[in-house]
């Protein structure tokens, strides 16, 4: 049903690419209206005024829906079309929507025609720009053939809206209620209305395009401003045309900025210009290079990568779009990475060297070393450990078993280490020598290696072969037993010796005392002996001298025997006395300077009676310039007297020679008495110095003497730090040599 006219608003802006259309068909609408108005000249004035009214209604209308409403209302009032509908195809859409209605309800606004519905006669009318008439239906079949419209069963015309003369699509459709055929007036209307709508549509599209352009430009600026990298467009001379915010900070400075900043900016501009002019213009396409700029804010160096592209614009000429990518941090990071890599390489080399060294050290250790990782796997072992725990390629079955057993024993030790809280563990593991199967007790010293977080990372175990130690311990124990035994024996022996020593000491004391007593006794006894002997010898002498009267020769001979035996006894007593004095230490030394030549002459002189009696020659071979010696003169003389008298006694033919020589090297003096006497057999040469020793010990011996003389001589020589030796040949003679130090000790 017809409804009061309602103003309909155009919904949605037509989406058409305005630029394109503007570029190809520049719009000039006004002259056409003028032509249309001129076509109306000649009609009646009502028609003219009506047409003017419509045109006036169009003037100033910018909205499509307003214009459509004015137009439809004019149709209703002027052409008597009480129901009408104006449909427009919005830009880019495949449907026709209502922009104006007259005499129809408000529900018409939701009406639309899908242009994809090819069966709809309205679509055909629109597409072919062909007017169609739909009469009121008489049957349901008629209704089906009719399109569904807000006009319902009323008859109507569908008039496409388009610009005549242009091979364009229609842009809208008019539905005009009523049966009358469309007259020339209505054609004028559609023409004018179409033109007006077309103009408005085009204006809308343009406005929309301008808005979109503005939005897009803003968006573009926002985008390029949002980019932290400086972006700029320069002309071929390097002058700045467009720059984003970041670029502005680098390349522009206002008068208020500090001199430093302005300087930095000038510098940056120069650097950029030279970079662009030198390279960018010569080469086409994008180029990349590094550009060093100054940060105007703090003066620090900034390294950029400059990407410049030459753009060709026929209207504005060539320009260069440059994007600067700040690679300062990148460069720094890259340098850092490089440095880190270098450090890492060095560390790696060091670590490898350290590791090699460690391996070398570990391998050079004679004790097996095993490093077990936290998982219980073996991460490292040295050669000695390998011999214990790895099966050699040529191992026999039994050897393999030994190695496996070793591995099992060691694993059990390590497992204990893992569960233990101890940092270190020392234990004994019984392994076997894989080659011989010989039991091999080892001392295992395991230490945990912890990470800095205290996590167990490895266990290092050093195995020490205890066989040698055990063997040593065994030997040591044996040695200890032997040593103890020895010590006991030594202690026993020492005690024994101490006891013996004590005994000996006591015996020595006793002996000494006994000896002293003996010496004293002998000394006293010899004195007591001599007193009566003195009287006996004295009286004998007196008898022989005839003091008591003349003595007959036989008596004289007998008295002579008494006298000689008395003298012999006296000699014995004297010599015993000498020995006992020497032994009792009661014969002190009287050290003095001794002139040896004088001494020898004296000795010879004293024995002169005997020499004369025995008819022997005594030769003295003593250098007159012989240096004096230090000794006990009386004792030397006694020795020499004894030696000479002995020689005289045992020599029957020839003579005796006394020789004195000083031996500078030994600091000694030798006094030798050489005779041509009976001599002494080699076997007897030592015995002659013994006490009471005369070789002929028979009671009727041929030679006098006590047999104590040489014994006393030897004792005296020893007292003087000297010695007496003999060289002799039986039947040829003897040489007795007294050797004395030239400087005897006091």
């Amino acid at each position, binding site marked *: 049903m017809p409804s009061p006219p309602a103003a309909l608003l155009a919904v949605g802006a037509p989406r058409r690419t305005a630029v394109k259309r503007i570029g190809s068909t520049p719009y000039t609408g006004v002259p056409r209206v003028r032509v249309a108005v001129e076509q109306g000249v000649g009609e009646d004035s009502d028609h003219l005024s009506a047409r003017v009214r419509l045109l006036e209604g169009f003037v100033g209308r910018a909205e499509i829906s307003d214009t459509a409403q004015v137009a439809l209302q004019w149709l209703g009032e002027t052409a008597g079309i009480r129901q009408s509908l104006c449909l427009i195809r919005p830009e880019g859409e495949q449907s026709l929507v209502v922009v104006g209605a007259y005499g129809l309800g408000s529900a018409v606004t939701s009406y639309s025609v899908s242009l994809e519905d090819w069966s709809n006669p309205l679509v055909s009318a629109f597409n072919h720009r062909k007017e169609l008439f739909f009469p009121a239906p008489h049957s349901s079949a008629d209704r089906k053939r009719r399109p569904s419209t807000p006009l319902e069963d009323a008859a109507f015309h569908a008039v496409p809206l388009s610009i005549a003369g242009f091979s364009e699509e229609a842009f809208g459709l008019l539905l005009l209620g009523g049966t009358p055929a469309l007259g020339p007036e209505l054609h004028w209307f559609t023409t004018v209305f179409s033109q007006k709508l077309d103009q408005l549509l085009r204006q809308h599209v343009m406005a929309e395009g301008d808005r979109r352009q503005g939005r897009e430009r803003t968006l573009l600026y926002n985008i390029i401003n949002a980019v932290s990298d400086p972006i700029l467009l320069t002309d071929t001379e390097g002058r700045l045309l467009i720059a984003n915010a970041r670029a502005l900070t680098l390349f522009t400075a206002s008068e208020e900025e500090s001199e430093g900043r302005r300087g930095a900016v000038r510098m940056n501009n120069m650097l950029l210009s030279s970079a662009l002019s030198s390279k960018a213009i010569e080469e086409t396409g994008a180029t990349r290079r590094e550009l060093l700029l100054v940060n105007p804010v703090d003066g620090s160096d900034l390294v950029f990568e400059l990407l410049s592209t030459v753009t060709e614009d026929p209207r504005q000429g060539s320009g260069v779009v440059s994007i600067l990518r700040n690679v300062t941090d990148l460069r720094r990071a890259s340098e850092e990475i490089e440095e880190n890599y270098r450090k890492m390489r060095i560390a790696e080399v060091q670590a490898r060297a350290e590791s090699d060294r460690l391996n070398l050290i570990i391998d050079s250790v004679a004790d097996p070393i095993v490093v077990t990782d936290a998982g219980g796997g073996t991460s490292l072992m040295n050669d000695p450990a390998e011999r214990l725990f790895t099966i050699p390629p040529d191992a026999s079955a039994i050897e393999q078993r030994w190695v496996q057993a070793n591995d099992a024993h060691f694993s059990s030790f390590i497992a204990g280490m893992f569960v233990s809280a101890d940092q270190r563990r020392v234990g004994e593991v019984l392994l076997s020598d894989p080659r011989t199967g010989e039991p091999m007790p080892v001392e295992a010293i395991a230490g945990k290696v912890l990470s800095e977080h205290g996590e167990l990372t490895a266990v290092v175990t050093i195995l020490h072969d205890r066989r040698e130690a055990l063997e040593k311990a065994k030997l040591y124990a044996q040695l200890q037993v032997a040593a103890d035994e020895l010590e006991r024996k030594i202690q026993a022996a020492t005690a024994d010796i101490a006891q013996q020593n004590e005994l000996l000491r006591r015996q020595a004391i006793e002996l000494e005392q006994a000896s002293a007593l003996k010496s004293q006794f002998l000394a006293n006894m010899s*004195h007591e002996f*001599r*007193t*009566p*002997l*003195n*009287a006996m*010898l*004295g*009286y004998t*002498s*007196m008898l022989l*001298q005839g*003091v008591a009267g003349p003595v007959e020769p036989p008596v004289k001979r007998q008295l002579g025997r008494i006298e000689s035996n008395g*003298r012999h006894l*006296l*000699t014995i007593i*004297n010599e015993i*006395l000498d020995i006992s*004095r020497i032994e009792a230490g*009661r*014969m*002190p030394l*009287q050290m003095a300077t001794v002139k040896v030549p004088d001494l020898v002459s004296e000795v010879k002189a*004293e024995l002169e009676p005997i020499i004369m009696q025995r008819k022997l020659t005594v030769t003295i071979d003593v250098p007159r310039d012989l240096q004096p010696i230090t000794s006990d003169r*009386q004792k030397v003389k*006694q020795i020499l*007297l004894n030696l000479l*008298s002995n020689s005289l006694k045992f020599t029957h033919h020839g003579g005796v020679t006394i020789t004195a020589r000083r031996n500078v090297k030994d600091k000694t003096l030798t006094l030798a008495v050489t005779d041509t006497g009976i001599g002494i057999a080699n076997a007897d040469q030592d015995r002659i110095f013994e006490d009471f020793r005369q070789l002929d010990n028979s009671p009727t011996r041929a030679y006098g003497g006590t047999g104590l003389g040489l014994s006393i001589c030897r004792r005296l020589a020893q007292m003087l730090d000297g010695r007496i030796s003999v060289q002799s040949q039986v039947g040829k003679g003897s040489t007795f040599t007294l050797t004395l130090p030239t400087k005897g000790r006091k």
Partner: protein
Amino acid sequence: MSTKSDRPRVLLVDDYPDAREMYTEYLEFSGFEVVEAGNGMEALQRAIDTSPDIILMDLSLPVMDGWEATRRLKADERTASIPVVALTGHALAGISEGAKKAGCDAFVTKPCLPEDLVREIRKILDNPPSHSSTRKARRSGKYAKTS
């Protein structure tokens, strides 16, 4: 109190009577006048009483020994100038030294044959020690030991 004869007078001091008698007999036989003493004390008395030309002094004596007697003789100006010949059976080195210190003028070791003793006496009397040399010891008796 005997009057002094032409013969030299010898004071013989010895505690062993047989030795004393033997030497006396021989000294008298050899032309000496002999005065005897049996100990040191007696010797001192006889020396003062008889003023002998020489004194033969055995050193081992009872009552007062020969050393002490000699010291006293030498300390007494009446007897100091009389030569003293020490007689001893102890042939020890220290004894002759001790005798010299005591003031003996000569030293004769016993046993000493009578003729040896006479020879020694004659030697001293023929060459009497001057007062200053009274302390110079004369040695004798060596033949007795070494023969």
